[in-house]
């Protein structure tokens, strides 16, 4: 019982960065843009999230504020990078796959470079401490699992329903989905497809930046240029796992992270098989679960990856 509670209590915060980043990527893809550069935006977000509290906020009474300033900077930079990416793939219609890899290299490279220049070696910050919710965190099983985390964790778990609402209930969500599924139709009824795509990229970028900032400010409370370590790519993969649906994506992120917590706990219990096989567990599990879930693929963004221009017929 304790074992299970521990795993759940660990898996929840582990999932946050993936969750936020994949929701961001979901908005990109729903609008029709495939952003493989998520990893790069996360790296920038992690760096900028770290920078403000590191440079100015250290120890002083204003430390807390600088943490949040870092988050805002990370999100702003993420949005900017999204827009920058949009310039290449929306305006100039560059193939999104390569451009995404370009963005990833750019983000990781710039974050690493600036980190080296402005900070030096691996450094830590106090970061944002956990904030158990007063009464709720005392509830036996649910308390540690749901209510004893970092403030950003709570925010992150408000995101999926919010994303669902935005996507399916608001005019903007309607425009995003239409732009990703049939841009020509959307255009013909007055949706500014490319503008919507830019907006979605900005939103997605901001979320990826936030995910990065979560890693550096809340989870690791450090930065080094390897901080993202492929999580951006996993976030992209989780969007496919969740078939572009916020709640299913959340399920995917949780599944992955719980499996992660589980395998670490299993390793710790002393296993008599090579630990590498334990490390593989989350990756295998995600594939297997997806393989056995049936889903109508027609419901996704059918124009994903295709640039749009009114006059150019393809």
């Amino acid at each position: 019982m304790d074992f299970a509670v521990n795993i759940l209590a660990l898996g929840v915060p582990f999932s946050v960065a993936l969750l936020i980043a994949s929701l961001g990527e979901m908005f990109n893809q729903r609008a029709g843009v495939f952003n493989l550069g998520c990893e790069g935006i996360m790296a920038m977000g992690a760096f900028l999230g770290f920078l403000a509290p590191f440079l100015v906020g250290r120890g002083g009474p204003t430390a807390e504020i600088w943490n949040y300033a870092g988050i805002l900077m990370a999100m702003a930079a993420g949005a900017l990078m999204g827009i920058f990416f949009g310039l290449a793939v929306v305006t100039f219609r560059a193939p999104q796959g390569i451009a995404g890899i370009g963005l990833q290299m750019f983000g990781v490279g710039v974050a690493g470079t600036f980190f080296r220049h402005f900070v030096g070696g691996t450094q830590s910050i106090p970061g944002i401490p956990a904030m158990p919710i007063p009464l709720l965190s005392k509830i036996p099983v649910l308390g540690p699992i749901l209510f004893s985390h970092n403030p950003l964790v709570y925010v992150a778990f408000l995101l999926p329903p919010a994303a669902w609402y935005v996507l399916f209930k608001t005019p903007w969500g309607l425009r995003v989905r239409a732009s990703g599924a049939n841009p020509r139709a959307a255009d013909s009824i007055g949706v500014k497809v490319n503008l919507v795509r830019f907006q979605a990229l900005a939103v997605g970028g901001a979320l990826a930046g936030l995910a990065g900032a979560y890693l550096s400010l809340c989870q690791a409370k450090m930065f080094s240029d390897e901080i993202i370590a492929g999580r951006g790519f996993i976030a992209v993969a989780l969007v496919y796992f969740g078939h572009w649906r916020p709640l299913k994506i959340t399920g995917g992120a949780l599944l992955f992270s719980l499996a992660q917590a589980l395998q670490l706990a299993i390793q710790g219990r002393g296993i008599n098989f090579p630990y590498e096989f334990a490390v593989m567990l989350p990756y295998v599990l995600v594939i297997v679960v997806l393989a056995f879930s049936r889903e109508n693929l027609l419901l996704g963004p059918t124009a994903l990856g295709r640039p749009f221009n009114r006059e150019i017929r393809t």
Partner: protein
Amino acid sequence: MPQEIVNRISSLRMEGITKRFPGTLACDDISLSVGEGEILALVGENGAGKTTLMNILMGLYRPDEGRILINGSEVVFRSPNDAFAAGLGMVHQQYMLVANMTVLENIALGYKRAWSPLRVDLEMVRARIGEVADRYGLSVDPDAFVWQLSIGEQQRVELVKTLCLGARFLILDEPTSALTPQETDELIDLLKRMRSELSIIFISHKLHEVKNLSDRVVILRRGSVAFEGSTSEHSPGEIAALMTGREVVLPKNEAPCCEGCEALAIRGLKVRSDRGFLAVDGLDLSICSGEIVGLAGVSGNGQRELAEAINGLRSVEEGEILFFGRDIANLKPGEVIAEGMGYIPEERNTEGIVPPFSMKENFILKDSGDPHYASRSFLRLKEIDRNADRLREEFDIRSPDTRVAAGSLSGGNIQKVILARELSRAPRFLVAVYPTRGLDMGAAEFIHKRLLEKRAEGMGILLVSEELEEVLDLSDRIAVIFKGRIIDTLDRDSADSRKLGVLMAGVKESGDEAV
């Protein structure tokens, strides 16, 4: 903006419109005008520039030259929003619907009155749809996903959408190409009634509709106005001649019914649709070699599923499909092809051709392994070239050469590519689904001739069409499909469009309703 407040459009004029695409001059100094309550028909061969011109009017394309005047003053439309605001609305030739959204959502997308920053008031949209549906007698299911709808239903949704948005000036780009005769008649009646409130530009390849509906007609040829005049003063034949520069006579099947062996026999066939219900529900049908059987019916009654099941593209739940005695139900598409089946699919752009492939590559889509085109798996390029040149010549496919991407051809030419491939393979049988949908009269004439020729050579043909004239012209027998079953089969001589129309609505001659 409430559409009631929009100023009346008492006149609309396009002046000197020129639009260039790389390599084509789509519109060349076109001028036309439409008055209040007037219905203008815009006709011309495929690729004449009709759609382009209308897209310019809707703000989708910017003209290179020329200007648009509404009520005498110049307007500049930068996007469809500007055109909507001016009271224009358009039903596009290629349906502009988002397949994975519901009808309701598709309409909500443009119905800005139902928007607040944080919410789309879908109930308001639903009410609006109901209002329009009642007023014009156009019923649609707001909660259906568009991908679940037949093309005819989609066309209706398009119309409802445009009307919901409150157009005062309606542009209809080939709105009837996928409608049944009844639906077409209803639409035309509807449009006639609407003329008290609206001005209309109506594009169609069906000249009797033009004749029936419009006040004036403008004929485009290669991007410029070839003729402009009052409709009542010219017969359809004259208009066709003005359009193509020659006389068009659609051929008729007058040969005696030939006595071939039974080629295709379908018994108790049951097939599910994408939505999961039995779209073909116990269908029986038999067709002989050297016979054309027309399958008439309102689209969405199982035609697509039937054709796909015959060709191995959809699994069969129950029943058998005997093809020259062999049951081909649930065979793979490749195996059905090998049995000697030819198939002209409904979706010409995505199913009938591989769009990025060149025309010549598309010609060998079904024969890439045939020794004629490949020896030991190596493609015989010379042979492929020769074949392509021959077919292009024979079927009069208009393109610079056979290396152009098939997807860049016009719809008519794409249809010819498919037809050329299917007929030149000399199959024993052909399933032809809506083979002339959206084609101009010249192209339709050509295709009809080809089908009749093949019939004379002994090929059996299942001709799926909603166009009664086509069915009546070409078929030896006509089967009417309704809700997945054949409710009656008529001989050519005993059939006429009135009888067929009644049957297509699901009513048997005896008066009782078929289930």
